């Protein structure tokens, strides 16, 4: 038989069973605990790593890999399938799943979805000019640069993650109560272990699949309106640059997982009310029906180098949302800072002397 030693959640001392209270009692700090509460606490304290989410790339799952002998491996049961060269898809004779042959065999990789450009190039230029307007710290010579020539329409490869998630999280919370008597002020802090479990579904969480684009830029121009999502059609690509993804879906998963975990925590945390402080203790999440899709989204891109630093601006080619980082004129920064400070000091001093200096 294994003996379990229970430690006090408050002070860490060993607990003893109190027959009178029928609870576990701490001789050190005097707190008493129900066994159920202690079990829940022990569970929450376990150093469990965040669980991995499992995704399935639909097209890849359907596509069979070609062997050196010219046969194909069924992605479902790993059986070898013999097909003709012209076969596009077939049904696995062993597991009866539909297996796509052509896409993999030809080495082509078509996106599942795309959103065509809706913002014109002229409109994109105007948005950039508006973005620069009224920026007092923008270097004068930067405004006159020919960076507009570097404007290019670019279909950015994205991985879209879908799943039905089940999140199971614990929070350590506190609630305080204060009162006073004639001599002392008292503050009682009560500690709780709050457990929340919930289910939610995510639809097309985008993660940038290109190393050319900075993640901060591609995330900043979100969201895209998925109402405009269309099946891939090469006709939409005419006149725009398009790159195949160079970040594998497996690598992009990490970022998707991070965002899903944070969203699930925020959703569960919103149900923890009536406490002064809420700190997440344990986060677990499982994904069902995980699916990854490959999509191309439209982005107007400006790139320029100013003072040996690369500046990238992007406009959402569907919604027109503009993001980017403009260079800062340090001279102007200090000029305004010193000027405002000097002016403020003079005005405040004058008012201060009139009001508090004994002049009036």
């Amino acid at each position, binding site marked *: 038989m294994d003996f379990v030693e229970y430690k006090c959640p408050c002070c860490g001392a060993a607990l003893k069973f109190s027959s009178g209270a029928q609870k576990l009692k701490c001789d050190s700090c005097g707190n008493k605990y129900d066994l*159920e509460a202690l079990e*829940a606490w022990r569970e929450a304290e376990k150093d469990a790593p965040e669980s991995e989410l499992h995704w399935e790339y639909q097209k890849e799952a359907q596509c069979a890999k070609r062997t050196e002998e010219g046969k194909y491996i069924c992605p479902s049961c790993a059986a070898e399938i013999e097909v003709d060269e012209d076969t596009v898809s077939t049904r696995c004779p062993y597991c009866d799943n539909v297996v796509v042959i052509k896409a993999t065999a030809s080495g082509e990789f078509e996106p599942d979805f795309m959103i065509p450009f809706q913002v014109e190039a002229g409109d994109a230029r105007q948005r950039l000019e508006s973005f620069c307007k009224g920026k007092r710290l923008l270097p004068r010579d930067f405004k006159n640069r020919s960076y507009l020539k570097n404007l290019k329409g670019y279909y950015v490869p994205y991985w879209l993650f879908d799943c039905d998630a089940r999140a199971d999280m614990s929070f350590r919370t506190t609630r305080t109560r204060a009162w006073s008597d004639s001599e002392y002020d008292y503050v009682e802090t009560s500690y709780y272990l709050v457990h*929340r479990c919930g289910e939610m579904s995510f639809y097309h969480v985008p993660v940038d699949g290109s190393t050319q684009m900075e993640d901060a830029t591609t995330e900043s121009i979100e969201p895209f309106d998925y109402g405009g999502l269309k099946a891939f059609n090469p006709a939409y690509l005419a006149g725009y640059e398009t790159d195949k993804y160079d970040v594998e879906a497996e690598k992009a998963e990490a970022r998707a997982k*991070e965002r899903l975990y944070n969203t699930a925590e925020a959703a569960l945390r919103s149900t923890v009310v009536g406490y002064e402080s809420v700190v997440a203790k344990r986060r677990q999440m499982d994904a069902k029906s995980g699916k990854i899709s490959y999509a191309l989204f439209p982005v107007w891109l400006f790139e320029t180098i100013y003072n040996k630093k690369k500046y990238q601006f992007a406009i959402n080619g569907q919604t027109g949302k503009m993001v980017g980082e403009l260079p800062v004129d340090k001279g102007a920064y200090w000029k305004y800072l010193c000027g405002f*400070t000097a002016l403020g*000091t003079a005005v405040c001093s004058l008012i201060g002397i009139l009001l508090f200096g004994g002049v009036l």
Partner: protein
Amino acid sequence: MERMEWRRSLLYAARPVVLGGLIALVLCLTVNFQGLAAEPATLESVGELAVPEGVEDPALEDTGESFLLKPAEGQTWVIDQAGLLTSEEENLLNEKCRQLYDTYGVLVTIVTVDDFGGGDILEWQKRVFMENPFGVKAKDGVMLAISMSERDWGIQTFGNGQRAFNTYGRERIGEIVVESLSEGEYYEAFDDFAELSGKFLKAAEKGKPYSSEHPYRASAPIWLIIGISFGLSLAVSLIIVTGWKKSMNTQVRKNEAGQYLKQGSFHLTRSSDVFLYHTVSRSQRPKQDSSNSSGGSGMHSTSSGTSGKF
């Protein structure tokens, strides 16, 4: 002969004149001596200062001396019988009070004693002013006196001094001065008194003496006003310019994916709130100091004087 007769008749005639002159001289001396002692008696018409004839003053009786304070050899505005000031400090204060006298014609005096003999310090101050140990002729004045053994302080006004140092003014000055007195910073207290007296006299001279309707506000040092102005301006400027700088970069990573959560898909499947333990902390409440005399509660004011303990 005629000449001798003339001289004799002249001496005869001069005798009553000389006698009269001697009598006049004696009378003059007597009148002068009484005049010196009775000079402030003209102030008795100011009402509060009037000491009715026949009323005996216990402070006078208790001292058993002809003078409450030893008269100064020359002119002085500070009599430090308790020895709280260095000679340098005394000179500085004297100079300030002398300037006030020259400017406003009001005798601003400071008196310290070890023991004034008990009773009402304001009454004692009136006697001192009547004796005029300062060697300065003035009908109008204000006196700050402190007695170390009783820890009494008093501000008493004389003549038109009451206009500048009305009840509000004396209590306001008392509030400020008593803080330094309580901390044993006597020179600072007297220096404050002299400074404040100048300001109150100036306000009265302008026709707007400080009062509850026209309250005195302690002026802050210029360097402090400029320093605070600089700090505030720098903080506000930093907020403005840093805001501009931030607006130059609109790239923000999105750590959540709430907008991709299917509407209505989130629902709780399990929920529990388990109480673990509680802790109680306590802190001593600040005690109400009943002896605190701030706000004038520890002061006593008459129409011409204000006194209290320090």
